[in-house]
């Protein structure tokens, strides 16, 4: 099975992307999309060393929506900061101890942090236990850490890691 369909999740994603690319849901394109969605993972199987498991797909959806909303909010906050007096900014670094272990989960967390309000994941410690975060305007880094762990990390752990 794995040899024939190495990434069951990737095939539909690629098919959808194909249809998006072509701006078409013609039957021909769907067939072609499915073929490509099947063939490309097969061809690039060697570039995927480990399999990705999604334990809770619904939580993933929730997570995505949360992040998207945060992005919009973040933009307004950042915009205000930029338009405001730059001298009043109080940027800070904060260290986030990680509970996540999988590469993908950590990467997604880092991504989300960067995409959302005034924060930026700057460095991952080489043992992958700490994430250094830069905040645009943060007086209380500890509170920030707590928020992130609550809002994102918990969800990601549920989605990607068997508890």
């Amino acid at each position, binding site marked *: 099975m794995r040899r024939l369909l190495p990434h069951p999740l*990737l095939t539909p994603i*690629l098919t959808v*992307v*194909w249809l998006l*690319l*072509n701006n078409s849901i*013609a*039957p*021909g394109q769907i*067939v*072609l999309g499915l073929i*490509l969605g099947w063939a*490309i*993972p097969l*061809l*690039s199987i*060697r*570039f*995927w060393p480990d399999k990705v498991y999604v334990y809770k797909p619904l939580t993933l959806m929730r997570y995505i929506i949360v992040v998207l909303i945060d992005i919009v909010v973040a933009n307004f906050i950042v915009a205000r900061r930029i338009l405001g007096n730059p001298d009043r900014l109080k940027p800070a670094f904060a260290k986030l101890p990680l509970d996540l272990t999988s*590469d*993908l989960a*950590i*990467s997604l967390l*880092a*991504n989300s942090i960067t995409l959302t309000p005034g924060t930026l*994941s700057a460095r*991952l410690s*080489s043992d*992958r236990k700490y994430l250094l975060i830069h905040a645009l305007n943060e007086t209380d880094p500890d509170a920030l850490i707590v928020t992130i762990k609550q809002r994102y990390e918990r969800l990601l752990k549920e989605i990607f890691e068997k508890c």
Partner: protein
Amino acid sequence: MNLLLISLTPFIGAIFTAAISRLGRLHSAWAAVVVTSLALLLLLPLVPDVFAGQVLIQRFSWIPMAGLDVAFRLDGFALLFALLILGIGLLIVIYARYYLSERDDMGRFYAYLLLFMGSMLGIALSENIIQLLIFWEFTSLSSFLLISYWQHRQESRNGARMALAVTGAGGLALLGGFLLLGEIVGSYDLSVILASGDIIRADPLYRPMLILVLLGAFTKSAQFPFHFWLPNAMAAPTPVSAYLHSATMVKAGVFLLARLFPALSGTPEWFWLVSMTGLTTLLLAAYIALFKHDLKGLLAYSTISHLGLITLLFGIGTPLAAVAGVFHMINHAIFKASLFMAAGIIDHETGTRDMRRLSGLWMFMPYTASLAMVAAASMAGVPLFNGFLSKEMFFTETLLRTDEVWGWLLPAAATMAGIFAVAYSLRFVHNVFFNGMPVNLPKTPHEPPRWMKVPMEVLVALCLLVGIFPAITVEPILAVAAASVLQAPIPEHDLAIWHGFNPAVWMSMIALIGGALVYLNRRPLFRLHYQLISHLEFKKVYNYLLEQLFRFSVQVTKALNPNSLQRMVFVFIIFILVLGVSGFSGGEVLLTGHRELLPVDGVSLLVALVLMISAVGTVFLHKQRFVALILLGAVGLGISLIFIKFSAPDLALTQLSVEVVTIVLLLLALYFLPQHSPTESSKLRQYRDLMVALAVGGGVAVLAWAVLTRPYETIADYFLANSVTGGGGTNVVNVILVDFRGYDTLGEITVLALAGLGIYAMLDHLHLTGTSHDASGRFWDHDMHPVFMASFTRLLLPLALLVAIFILLRGHNLPGGGFIAGLITAVALIMQYLANGVTWTQSRLPANIHSIIGFGLLIAVSTGLASWLFDHPFLTSTFSHIHWPLVGEFELASAMAFDLGVYLVVVGATLLILINLGLVHSMTLLPKTKKHSRKWKH
């Protein structure tokens, strides 16, 4: 009649002789005898015809349009010369067999000698003057080989090269002269030329032609001031000197004067140039000959002097003088050859040629001495010997112009030369054979072997026979020879020993007595000579000039080609500028055309400014290489935007992809290269470069403006009209690429493939060691492959591949195509390299990238070749719309297969380049290959 065969015999014989020498060294001597005799035998049957007054001509067509035929001619003069060449040649061949020592390579010697003989024969027998010139130059070459026969001796090598240079130069001048002569006459045939004397003399080209021809003749015949090579050629083995430097080769010059006498003579130019050169040479050489201590040196200068005499005779230009000239050629050949043989015997038997050491040889070799004395007497012009006869004719001819103001000069000079001739002949005889005992000779001399003397005996006998019985011995051949030289009946003349007491006899007597007196008083003369004149050596001048030539050449070459790229580029750019500017001349220059212009919008202005400022910024910051690269990225982006703005989406896509790969490659290179450029150019230099750059940039701007502002007609409408119907695609650019001009594209992917393969080949075995820290000394970050990057780029790979396929498939109808798709694929893989490194990525790619390129090319070519099956030209495309249930209608075009080939080559080539660069560094991870460590100090 086969003159070709006669001429070729020695050449074929030379090869035969060289080959046979493997069987034994003496075999080649006999072979040479056989060859020479064979040529003589072939010639003899023709003699009666010639004596009957016929001119035999044999002609083969060669290069008709250039007027070059292989054409041979046998008339009296040619016959005389041929007989001399072969006759004396035969004697020399025999003589040399005994002269050469055990160590000498006889095969080589005889091969060269026969080569020379053939060349000389060719000169004598040529009807076509260009053919004559070919043989002429060949005599120079074969004489080079003969003079340098003893290669280990420096004087041989130098003498040979000098002879080659001087006679070669003459040959080249002669080529020029003959070309002009041919141009004047309209033919290179001697027969025509000899009949066109009046036309030639009247032509405006006569003067340059004459000078060039005479240069040829004078250099070959060692006339002043080109005489100096001949004494230096004496480094050759003596048989060679006897043959080349007395009897034959040096005669080629005077032969030419005689041959062209009817065509060229009879003008003041001829008279003054030829006679004055001859006179100077005659006198000067006779004088120098007296003071030479080297036996062969004396003979060499004597030869020069006698050649001057012959030249003078032809310069005087009367028919009788010409007859005398021909006669003296014969006589000189005979006595001088025998004298050289004598010198050779002496050298051979005593081991030296220095007359200060040679004395009293009469006691050791009386027989040889007697022979030599006869020949010397002939040289001195003593009555009863052949030399006397022609010399007396000469004296007679010098007296023709005594009624003119300077008319007495000629006989006086002739007599003076005669005095010196007698003196040096006396010296030769007295100094060598008498005058006390020899000094410190390397060998004890004795008579030479029998057959070494025979050739000399024959020649000396001829001296006497001709001298005493001229009418029956030499008159017949002289008559036909002179007649063909003059191209007219020969004038009344009488070859007798005694003509009564005429002025010539008095001149001879003065010469004989004067010569004896000079010789007797030689000591003060020698002293005077060595104090005043001896340092005036032409050889030194020649060597000095040669040295200056080499020095000058080295300087010029160094100055012109200093191995500097900037110089090269600078010169090229200036050249282009000059060319470009000169294009503006010669016609109306209308810089601004009549086309309606487009307005500038703000965004375009902004993009243009960004682009230009980035470009200028790159130049300003080029020493900070990394920053320059970032700015280059902005330039690339700007270019892409311009492409988009001006309706070229395909180009924008290509540019964007190419830009990234280029930047990746530059970054890779920058890692190994220094991070900064040092300041090396002076302010002045920078200013100069700036000016040049502005000039070129301005030129480009002006040209662009001129073109952009004028309307034009183009073939483009055809492509727009036929793209869909003929090429089956709506993206005209792509249809042009894969169909209308698919052949270009085939070439283009070949270029890309070549780049991949070339880089692969170039980087083979190249090892570069990277740095452990950056330019400011900071160690590199430890995190080789940041996790986020790795995980996301992995996700991006299938997406990018999908996009690539999308671009590939739609290319025919919408912007895209094989190139862009290939580059996107390559970039997607580069992303993997960036995120995961070479080793990781490499192990996941197909092992043989070369085959990907190969397959790509194969697919592209096969697509093109498939059209042959339908009897269409290469790359003829076809397409059709296929209806497939469920999927619907879609198009299949052969061009798409072609595009697939393109795609594969692009992917393959790009990867091959990267992989190699990756390997260059990864090699260094292995400790054993860590040979070339990076040099730090710059």
